[in-house]
């Protein structure tokens, strides 16, 4: 019984660890794409966020400043994406791919400049990482294993709630969705389509930056070039999987995190499954595909997602 609880606790805590960056970043995708701008650049925005987060932490020792710095950095690259795809009618996919080359390139370049040629930032001491507010408050065992985790994890869930509230309960949310579904209709009602889209795209970069920072400031304590490697794309998939909804994106992220936890769990010698770890590693991706086939099926995004909107065109 005890070992079952331990396993469960570990599975849950691993799930939370893996899901956190995905939740942040997929929420970013939710905002951007609900306003009608496809954001393939999440990967790059996450990377620059992870780098700036770690770097600010190294120089200031303040994790929250670092976290905010990561958001700003992600937001700046999102601004680039916004300028191209909103003001200059760029193909949004192409502009996003450009970001995916630019942001990691600049992150590593700057790392080399700032840290004497190193592509890895110096390690941040434990007390300068993201705080764990419940550390030491919980009885050791199940509760401690699961809930004694970094503030970023809790923040991610709070953000899901906020995002849900903003999108579905507020005036701004109504307008975001209107702009994503039918920008021209919104325009004829005096809603500034470009402004709404700018805000949402920048917000998506900020959230992706947070996602990156939640890796480099909490899961580990350094930035390195391979840290993000593909998480941005997984977050993109989670957003689509979650049908462009905050709660859906969260559930998809959790599923993915859980599947990753499962890989670790099944790989443990205690379980004693004698399967190649290469095959085990496929689990999260296969689970995602199966869930898509059997439970989710067709997902349609906002109607105007990916479309350029020019005022005065038809």
């Amino acid at each position, binding site marked *: 019984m005890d070992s079952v609880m331990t396993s469960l606790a570990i599975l849950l805590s691993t799930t939370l660890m893996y899901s956190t960056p995905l939740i942040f970043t997929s929420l970013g995708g939710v905002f951007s794409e609900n306003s009608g701008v496809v954001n393939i650049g999440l990967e790059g925005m996450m990377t620059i966020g992870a780098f700036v987060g770690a770097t600010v932490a190294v120089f200031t020792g303040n994790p929250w400043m670092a976290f905010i710095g990561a958001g700003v950095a992600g937001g700046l690259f999102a601004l680039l994406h916004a300028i191209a795809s909103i003001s200059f*009618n*760029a*193909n949004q996919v*192409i502009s996003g*791919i450009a970001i*995916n080359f630019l942001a*990691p390139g600049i992150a590593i370049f700057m790392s080399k400049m700032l840290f004497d040629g190193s592509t890895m930032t110096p390690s941040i001491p434990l007390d300068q990482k993201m705080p764990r507010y419940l550390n030491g408050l919980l009885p050791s065992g199940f509760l401690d294993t699961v809930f004694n985790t970094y503030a970023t994890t809790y923040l991610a869930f709070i953000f899901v709630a906020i995002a849900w509230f903003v999108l579905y309960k507020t005036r701004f949310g109504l307008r975001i969705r209107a702009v994503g579904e039918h920008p021209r209709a919104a325009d004829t009602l005096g809603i500034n389509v470009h402004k709404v889209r700018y805000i949402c795209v920048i917000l998506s970069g900020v959230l992706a930056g947070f996602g990156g920072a939640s890796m480099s400031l909490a899961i580990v304590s350094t930035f390195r070039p391979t840290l993000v490697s593909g998480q941005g794309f997984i977050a993109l998939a989670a957003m689509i999987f979650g049908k462009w909804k905050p709660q859906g994106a969260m559930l998809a992220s959790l599923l993915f995190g859980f599947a990753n936890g499962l890989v670790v769990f099944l790989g443990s010698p205690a379980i004693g499954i004698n399967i190649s770890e290469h095959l085990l590693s496929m689990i999260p991706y296969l689970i995602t595909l199966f869930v898509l086939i059997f439970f989710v099926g067709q997902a349609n995004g906002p109607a105007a997602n990916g479309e350029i909107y020019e005022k005065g065109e038809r």
Partner: protein
Amino acid sequence: MKKFRINEQLLYTLLSIILGFLVGAVILSIAGFNPIEAYSVMIQGVIGKPRFIAWTIVYATPLILTGLSVAFAFRTGLFNIGAEGQYIIGSMAAVLVGYFFDGPAIIHIPLAIIAGCLAGALWAAVAGLLKAKFGINEVISTIMLNWTALYLSNFVTTIDGFRLPNSEASYSIKETASIGISFLKPLVGTAKVNWGIVIAIIAAILVYYIIFKTTLGYELRAVGYNKHAAEYGGINVNKSIVISMAIAGGLAGLAGVTQVLGVSHKITILAAAEGYGFDGMAVSLIGANSPFGVLLAGLLFGGLKYGGSKLQTIGAPPEVVSIVIGSIIYFIAASSIVKILINKFKVKGGRKNG
């Protein structure tokens, strides 16, 4: 009329490339390097000797093919993020045939090529099928299939009898499966020139032909542009999606084939994707999704990658290359920025034509 448009496109692309290099120059100067020196090291390093040019072509070959893969899918309304995985599967299949099959080169080589191409095609067809049957967005499915391919290839690499003992690699392919070119050695020295580039050029011509000159291409494009009208016109939309993905996957698989039969001769356990598919997206975009554009863009990209590594001989970070490529794509995406710049230039030059 049409001709003018193509030239215009070419003009924007060229200007974007120049602007991309300018951004790189600014970054280099900020970091304290002389951009002129850096770029001349790069250019020297790419065209300075026949051997360098040969290496550039070696680098470009798989990128042209993954670029064609992405471009083909784009042309038919699909977004193939999965070229990476298809590349991996193609490599794996080609090495399996290259190692296990016994026979003369004349059979062995085509067999390995077909195996890799077919494997990539089947792998991608899965994504096509998922889209056709269940409406699953190919963006998600190909991302998932990329990772699955990576681990599958790793798994296969470690199978007893295929794994080279005490290594992270498989056995190498037999000599009869190699597509290396040895007679150029006096000219290009040790560069690993191979027939891959010829395969890539043939593939580009074929892609052009299929897309624009055949009924199949007509169907695939119709579905890509407007599947409802295509269906009205009696085209089987689901079948088209699957075929389209399969062809794209075959091209990416072919990229893997040329790399393993021509350059590496084996597969290794990969910690992460090597980026051939993602670079292919860039190549396809720089090449404006046109087969011949992709050919040139692949060479440019190959040159940047190979020449970029030489930046390190003056201590400059090769990441400048990513920044240059990113900027080029950015300017291509936002070509109206470039248009504005051109118009400014025209006004200044007093050649404004309304």
